[in-house]
Structure formats: structure tokens, C-alpha cells
């Protein structure tokens, strides 16, 4: 055995490259945020950015920057939440295709909010968040239960089909609710495609406690996700309480998805793409994978938002559409990569 392939060497290089990647990713996040504040439908110069960022809104350009700052913050939060939620879901289900969008969790959250607005006259942000989180929870449990029935447990194919069918039913029901209500149709249309435009700090604040709780739960379950990756029997043999570990991690992911959907609407595919990229960068250890997924998710969502602002000038493309167009090809690529038996 040569020195370069010894286990210690591999571990040491991996650790080294992880630190390098961490620096790279943090730097990229910084650059992306800078771009997000400076680029857009209207061009601004550095002086305006500085003035706008410090709260000055005298000129048009400064006002634009002042609007873009909360928008960027929301993109960072939502992207991080979705990336993290995706990594957790893929870990829990041991399914490379798990994603809040594919599994119908976002559609469930959106339907719950539509019901709340149309039937119960909900109009506060707090109510939206609670409703979205319960909707996400119900949809997630539902899809997982259906997908894991029968022979072979929760195979990716069954989960994806159950999620797709649930999405169709949820979307159909959402339309049924809003169709006769002309007064709210415009308000709910935003629940069909997610976006981060029009964000304000007042709207972001109520979500923070949920996001923090979700992040904490998810990061704490990194170790048990590592054990679950070995298979249920092995994990139980190594002392993991499988059901508890799954439930805690799932609750974290649901909090993240629900809170994000409550402010931004359903944004798909971030949770699918990001963990796959991160696995290439830092390996399969969830203690590294989860934080990296959060950071990369934030970068992806900011970039998608910037792209959406630039390519559709003078109007904007919602970020949910951009992520779908980035994510669906990745989804198909993953499907093509895996051997049939694994799927």
C-alpha cells in the first residue's frame, strides 16, 4: 500500500480540503450577496450601494438598494433553510431524489395557506406561518406513509410517485378553493410560484424563531443521520433510537420548509440540487454535509434570484421558476446516473 492511499492520508486530505472548501463557499456567499444588492433591473453605482445599505433613500438608486437588502437577506435565509431541509430529507429517507418540492411538501403548505385565507379569513403573518408548517407536516407524513407501504419500503420511485400524485391533488384542490373567489385569486397566485421579491424585514422577523428551531434540530440530528445511512438495523445496533432520530430530523426539516414556504411561497429543487453538490465537495458525513448544504443553498438561491432579475429585464422572473429550470435537469441527471436497481 502506498502512502498516498493510506486511510490516515485520505482522512487528512479530506479534512484539509473541507476547510478549503469552507473558505471558498463563504467567499462565494459574500460575492453573491454583493451581486444581489448591486445588480438588478436598475443599475446602481457603489456610492449608492453604500448609502442605501446604511439606510439612505434620497435618490432612486439608493431606495432601490434599500429594497434589495432585505430581499438578499430573505434569499440567504430561505436558500439555507431549503438546502438544509433537502439534505435532512435525503438523509432520513435514504433517497437521492428527496426534495420538499418533489415530495409534495411545499404544495401541501401552499394548500394549507390557501384554505386558511379563503375559508378562515386569515390575514396575519403568524397565522400564515403556523398554517404553512402544519400543512407541510401533514403532507410530509402523508407522502412518507404512502410511499413506504408495501414491499421494499420507501423506494425513491414510490416516494416520487406518491409526492407527484399528492402535488397534483393539492394543486387541484387549491385551484378549486381560489377559483370562485375573484377577490383573493391575485393574492394566492403567489403561492403557486415562490419568489423573494417584495421582502421586508417586518415580514422576515416572525419566521426567524421557526427557522432557528428548524436549523438547531436539523444540525443536532447530523450524527443520527450518519447512523441511519448505514441502514436501520445497523443504526439500531449502534445504539440509535431510529424512530426518535427520524422524527426529530423530520420535524426540523418540516419547520424549515413550512416557514420558508410561508414567506416565499413554494420554491422547489434547491433542496434536491444542493446536497448532491455538497456531497461531491465534502463527502457524506452529515456533520459537514448539513452546514455546507445550508451555505450552498443560500448561494444557489441568491444566484437564481439575481439571474431572474437580469434575464427578464425590465420585469423579473420569480426565483421558483429559475430554480425549477436549474433543478429539473439535475434531477434527470441523477436519475440517469443511478443504476436502475438502486432506484
Amino acid at each position, binding site marked *: 500500500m502506498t502512502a498516498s492511499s493510506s486511510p490516515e492520508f485520505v482522512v487528512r486530505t479530506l479534512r484539509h480540503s473541507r476547510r478549503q472548501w469552507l473558505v471558498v463557499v463563504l467567499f462565494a456567499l459574500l460575492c453573491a450577496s454583493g451581486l444581489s444588492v448591486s445588480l438588478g433591473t436598475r443599475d446602481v453605482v457603489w456610492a449608492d450601494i453604500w448609502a442605501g445599505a446604511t439606510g439612505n433613500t434620497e435618490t432612486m438608486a439608493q431606495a432601490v438598494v434599500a429594497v434589495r437588502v432585505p430581499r438578499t437577506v430573505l434569499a440567504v435565509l430561505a436558500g439555507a433553510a431549503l438546502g438544509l431541509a433537502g439534505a435532512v430529507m435525503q438523509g432520513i429517507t435514504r433517497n437521492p431524489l428527496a426534495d420538499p418540492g418533489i415530495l409534495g411538501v411545499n404544495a401541501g403548505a401552499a394548500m394549507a395557506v390557501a384554505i386558511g385565507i379563503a375559508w378562515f379569513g386569515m390575514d396575519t403573518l403568524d397565522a400564515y406561518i403556523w398554517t404553512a408548517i402544519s400543512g407541510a407536516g401533514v403532507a410530509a407524513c402523508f407522502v412518507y406513509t404512502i410511499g413506504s407501504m*408495501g414491499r421494499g419500503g420507501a423506494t425513491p420511485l414510490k416516494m416520487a410517485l*406518491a409526492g407527484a*400524485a399528492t402535488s397534483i391533488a393539492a394543486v387541484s384542490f387549491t385551484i378549486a378553493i381560489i377559483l370562485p373567489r375573484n377577490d383573493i385569486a391575485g393574492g394566492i397566485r403567489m403561492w403557486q410560484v415562490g419568489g423573494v421579491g417584495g421582502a421586508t424585514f417586518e415580514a422576515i422577523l416572525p419566521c426567524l424563531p421557526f427557522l432557528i428551531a428548524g436549523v438547531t434540530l436539523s444540525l443536532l440530528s447530523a450524527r443520527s443521520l450518519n447512523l441511519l445511512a448505514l441502514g436501520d438495523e445497523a443504526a439500531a445496533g449502534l445504539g440509535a433510537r431510529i424512530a426518535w432520530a427520524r422524527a426529530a430530523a423530520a420535524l426540523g426539516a418540516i419547520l424549515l420548509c413550512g416557514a420558508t414556504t410561508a414567506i416565499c411561497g413554494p420554491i422547489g429543487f434547491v433542496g434536491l440540487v444542493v446536497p448532491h453538490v455538497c456531497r461531491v465537495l465534502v463527502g457524506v458525513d452529515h456533520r459537514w454535509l448539513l452546514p455546507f448544504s445550508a451555505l450552498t443553498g443560500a448561494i444557489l438561491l441568491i444566484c437564481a434570484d439575481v439571474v431572474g432579475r437580469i434575464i427578464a429585464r425590465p420585469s423579473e422572473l420569480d426565483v421558483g*421558476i429559475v430554480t425549477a429550470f436549474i433543478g*429539473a435537469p439535475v434531477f434527470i441527471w441523477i436519475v440517469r446516473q443511478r443504476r436502475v436497481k438502486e432506484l
Partner: protein
Amino acid sequence: MSTASQTTLADQLAQMRQQRARSRSRVVTTICGAVLAGFAVTLCLGQSLTPPIDVLRVLAGSDVPGASFTVGTLRLPRAIVSIMAGMSFGLGGVVFQAMLRNPLASPDIIGISTGASAAAVFAIVMLGWSGLAVSVVAVLAGFGVALLIYLLAWRDGVTGTRLILVGIGLSAMLESFIAYVLSRAPSWSLQDALRWLTGSVNGATLGQAFPVLASLIVFGSLLLTRQRAIEAMRLGDDSAIALGVPVARDRAIVILSAVGLIAVATAASGPIAFVAFLSGPIALRIIGSGKSPFIAAALIGALLVLIGDYVGQHLLPGRYPVGIVTGALGAPYLIYLIARSNKSGEGK
């Protein structure tokens, strides 16, 4: 002694087969009767009751004051488009389910009708088109998306699993495209475009029914002549080849015909939710498994759309397009079906 018992066994088998064939044709006749009854009820009974005599006179071509407009212009085209589209969806759906050997693999879930409606929505909202041009674009897009799914799933051959998953990925992309286009729509074309999201036979004309009828005749008969091949493919490619089925050629014909049925029907009525998905399993359940469900599935599809449209128009508070009703009716059945098919292992 042994020969005698063998003859009786053969006789018994033959008798059983005859009985099964008879019971199937009885069931098919019953469903056919139900579709006709539904057709008759839709013609007679709407917001107001039209006497059957008047309906018959309108159908015969004579001008009946008060009934000619309601029956001839409003109800008749609507009922005919419902039946034609329903049959297309039912037949196309059951063919996909049989060929991919998965009851969940229907064209509405794997994105073929989504492709057709994405193109239609784009043509209506962005290009301002209407009428025949929209239908043609929808049909072409249906074929295009089906081809794309097939090519993307190709990797030393195509497996059902990969085809379904690629379809789900593409349809998620197309759905977000539709949602984007709709968000750009001025409110007057929103109702029109919403049809392409859920499926509806509102304002159907006889002109819309003709392409669907033509595709039913052409593609439907192509499919019915390939029934045995489809049944053999259900056993898996190797068995089908062993049974003497030219799999590659027949599969191409079958896919082309099924996609044609779905795309043309989608162009006429929009993607009526879950009809393609539900008809096959319902038909199988009624006539029993192990028998060819194609004709029964087509008839069930027609019945679903007729009933769904009637319920949405007259029995619910407010008026809903048929796709909403079938979507809502379909959801609980879907849950039941997934639960059941997974239990028996078919859903894998």
C-alpha cells in the same frame, strides 16, 4: 381413466373461459349503457328540463323553439366533447399503465399532458393565439415532451422506472413554467388559461370534437389491434420477445398512439385531472384483473368526464370546471389505490 379426467379438465377450462368472456362483454355493455344514460341525462337536464321528445327532435335536425339553442348549441357539443376526451384519456392512460407496468405511471403524472398544456398556455397568453393554432401547438408539444422523456430516459435501453422519474422531473419544470406564464396573464385570459391548468369543457363546440374523434378512430384502432402485444409487454420485455412480439416496433406504435390520444384530447379540453389515471384501475376492478381492460377503460373515462362535468355545473354551489371535480374525486381514490397497489407490491 386419466384421459377422461383430462378431457373434463379441458372442458372445464374452456367453459370457464367462455364464462369469463361472456361476463366481460356483459360488463362492457353495462358501462356502455351507463355512458348512454349519462349522455341522455346531460342533454335533457341542465338549468332547465327539456322534454326528451324535444331533444330527439333537435337531434333529428328540426328547429324547436327554446330547445334548439340549449340542447343543440350548448349541451350537445359539451356532452360529445366530454365523451370523446374522456375515452381518449381513459384509453391512453390504461395503455401507459399496462406498458410501464405501474398503475401510477399515467400520462398526467409523468408529464405528457403537462407538456401539451404548457404549450397551449404559452400560445394563448404570450402569443395571443386562439382556436385551432393552439390545439396544433398543444398536440405537437405533447409529442415533443413524450419524445424528450423517452430520449432522456434512454441509457442502453429504456426502463419503466427511469421513464417515470424523468417524466416527473420534466413535469415539475413544465408546471413552474405554466405558473409563470399564468402570472403574466391579463385577468381576461386567466379564465381561458386556467382551463389549461385543470381541464374544462366549458364552451365546447362540435368543431373541437372532430379532431378528437379522428384521433380516437385512428389511434384507438391502432391500439386495439396491438392489444395482445401490450398484454405480452406487461409480462416484461423478455417474455414478450419469447412470445413472438416484435417489441421495439410495437412499443413505438403503442407509445405514439397513446401519446396522440392524450395530446389531441388535451388540446380540446385541457388536461382533465386524474381521468387517465383513474380509468384503468376502475375498469380493472369492475371487470376483474387478467382481462383486457382497454375498451372498458375508455368507457369509464367517458363516464368520469360526463359525471364530473355534470356535478361541477349543476350539483355544486358555484360552477367548477370538470378538472376540479375529477381532481377532488380522484384524490381519495388515489390514496386508496396507492395504499392497495403498494400492499400487493405492484406499486414498486
